[in-house]
């Protein structure tokens, strides 16, 4: 049986004071298995970013339980949560979130600096990742000197260097042109297949979602439907996604 990496039960989130409560998430149940590449789609305001933030421990749920591997997130203190984030989770953000004072290599190695692994092992991991992500050449350059695609791949390398249980990606292709986006997604898909790295990606772009192995649709804070890619081609999967999205409304996609 495949291991469950993330298990969310009845996750609710509401903002605002009493009398004027706005429920953003209204009972999400989600199970992510090891080696899955899960996409989360939905129109603006459907709660997809909130869900990602909560699952990624950056935000706290109002109700519900979340297990990552065997750890119950709701029972953790802030410090434990920070430690957990650093050791078990990886992040890729829309606007890269690289430190502009550090070189590409320094940025990538940042999460492992206080880890137990020794320098040689970290260096070896870095070399492998840099090769996979096509950023070997730019290790000593600063973020402002490289392209957006390179920055995002740097960010991806940083998310993977400490071998997290699951990688969260929040609109990773949002700021990239289509070529850079497809390079990045292709690499992520490859890593997901070859090394069974578990990835959860929030996006509103059906093209990006078509690289996933499963796509979850959110609407008004609830799961609306799920699509598995199975053995379908990416093009066929993309068409299915478009169809669901058309039913969902909200973001209208005219381009195919």
């Amino acid at each position, binding site marked *: 049986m495949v291991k469950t990496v993330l298990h969310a039960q009845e996750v609710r989130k509401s903002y605002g004071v009493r009398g004027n409560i706005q429920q953003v998430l209204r009972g999400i149940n989600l199970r992510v298995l090891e080696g899955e590449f899960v996409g989360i789609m939905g129109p603006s305001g459907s709660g997809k970013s909130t869900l990602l933030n909560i699952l990624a421990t950056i935000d706290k749920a109002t109700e519900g339980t979340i297990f990552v591997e065997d750890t119950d997130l709701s029972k953790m203190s802030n410090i434990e949560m920070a430690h957990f984030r650093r050791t078990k989770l990886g992040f890729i953000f829309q606007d890269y979130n690289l430190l502009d004072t550090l070189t590409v290599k320094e940025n990538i*190695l940042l999460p492992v600096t206080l880890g137990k692994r020794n320098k040689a092992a970290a*260096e070896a991991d870095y070399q492998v990742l840099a090769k996979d992500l096509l950023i070997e050449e730019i290790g000593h350059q600063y973020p402002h000197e490289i392209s957006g695609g390179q920055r995002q791949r740097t960010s991806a390398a*940083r998310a993977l260097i400490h071998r997290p249980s699951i990688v969260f990606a929040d609109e990773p292709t949002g700021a990239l042109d289509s070529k850079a986006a497809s390079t990045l997604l292709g690499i992520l898909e490859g890593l997901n297949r070859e090394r069974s790295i578990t990835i959860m990606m929030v996006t509103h772009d059906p093209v990006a979602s078509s690289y996933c192995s499963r796509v979850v649709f959110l609407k008004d804070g609830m799961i609306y439907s799920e699509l598995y890619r199975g053995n379908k081609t990416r093009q066929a999967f993309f068409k299915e996604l478009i169809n669901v999205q058309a039913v969902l409304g909200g973001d209208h996609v005219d381009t195919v």
Partner: protein
Amino acid sequence: MTQFELIIRGMRRNIKHYFLYYFAFIFSTSLYFVFATLQNDSSFMAASFSNFKFSSIFNAAGILVLVIVVVFMVYANHIFLKRRSKEIGLYQLVGLTHSMVARLLITENALLGAGALLIGMGSGVIMSRLFVLILMKLMGSQSLITLSFSGKAALQTMIVFTVLIVVTWMQMVFKVYRSTLLDLFQSDRKGDHPKQPRNFLSAVMGLAGIILILTGYMLSSQALGQHLFLKLLTILGMTILGTYLLFRVTIGWVFYRIRKGKNGHLGLSNSLSLATIMHRMKNNANSLTLITVLSAMTLTMVAISYSLYYSAGSESRGMLPYDFIFENNEQDSKSFGSQLEKAGITFAHGSIEALRLQGKNGSGKEGVHSLLLLTAEELQATGADIRVPVQNEAIMYKGLKWALSEERTSPSFSQTIDFGPSGVHVQITLNQAVDRYAMNYSVLGRQLVISLATMKSIRENMPISPGYESIHIDTYLIADQRERALASGIYTKMIKKDEFNPDFDSYYKESIRKFGLILFIAGFLSLTFLVSTGSILYFMQMTEAEQERKNYTILRQLGFEEREIIGGIIQKQWFVFSIPLVIGLLHSIFAVKAASALTLSDLTIPAAIAMSVYALIYFMFAVLTVIYYIRIVRTAL
């Protein structure tokens, strides 16, 4: 929203944000006002000394205060404008004209400036009283000088600070009219990106910085002698240039090497300290140089003036080993003694038989001096700490250090001294010189101490020669300080006006007054300097902290704990604050060392005390910035 509302809002926000700026503004206004009050107070200025240009020192200090206040205000305003550039850009983006934005800023600044000026002068009135009390205490003066509110001082302060505020307006106008919208919106993103330093050039420049500083140090430790002013300027120039290169090139180069050695495995604390400092080194080199030089100047000033004050007692003792003396005047001496007894004052009386004669050391005509020969055994009998030299040897008690004496090089020992131009020659060897006097300096002649036996043989060998004079000196020492002061009154009445016969008590009190005043002025100046340098560093760090906020958010999202991030920040602040302080301290240590060549006493303890007090206050600013950073990190996620 009307323009007025905009102004009020801006002010409210600014007071909260730039609390320290206004505090510093108010503080410097009060300081300047106190200075102006003292300057304009005739009764105060009259409390002067005959040999001492009191008012000119005060005026010079006033100019210094002014200069530092100007530098500080312009710098602080520059930082402010930079921080508010987004706001300025936004006003323009929504359609306000240049002149409207400028008027907005100027009105806001005028209101705040006027407020600060008034508060500053108000607290200046209170502070001036406090400062006068401190001054009186330092000078050991009992008579209280009462200061009244001086309209002239208020006017002077107002004019000076109004001009200053106008200067800051000009800065604002310049900023509003001269920068493009793009500049305004991207101002906080600017920061230079460290490039790989060109190896050869930066190595040379980095070394040049160190060499310049070291040469300056070496020059300073040499005796100053001729062309004093020129030499001082050279040393100053070298040190300042060296310091600038040190910040601009050397430190960056060293950091670059360290970083390269890490090969990407930087670690969180280095990422937060090393990388961030490198990132801003180019921009910060100017301010750090300014801070270092100011710190060095302040430290030197405080250390020297405190040392002078601290050692006034021992210095006076070095000049006047005996409280009272009578030279060839046994009659007066006796009556002085009996008067002391009558007044119930306990004293120790000693009498010394000395010889004054012409003597020659070295060859040529130059070496002929009037010499005062004293017997070590007799001096010892009066309680003096004096070693008995061996037969035919002498120890010179030259009082002044060589740095101040006219001879530029200290005499090489041992040399012979040849007495008796009349043809009878007695030679003794001079083996040692001591930096104090064995007899009060008012007694004529270079003081040579010899043993009783040597004295005897000299007396026997040359009974008559021109310029040969036998002198009887009566010495009086009084242990109790209050009794000494009483005796001083009796003594002053007895001695004739035309005679130069200072007594210890008057001399000591005079030096305390003199050095107390110098210490007061130095302390005053250094307070201004310290507050400005500390504030400049604080502003710099505040701005940096705001710019770094995004990075802290990232780090916290990645799962670094607050504690770890703050640890890295503390390391960074430690570098940022201690590098200028350490270099400033080094500079001032050498400066104090050079200055200690001028005084008789050891300056180590007082200088160390002054420097540690300075460092302590300075580091309070570091703590303040760390607190500011902690707040930013806390709210970053």
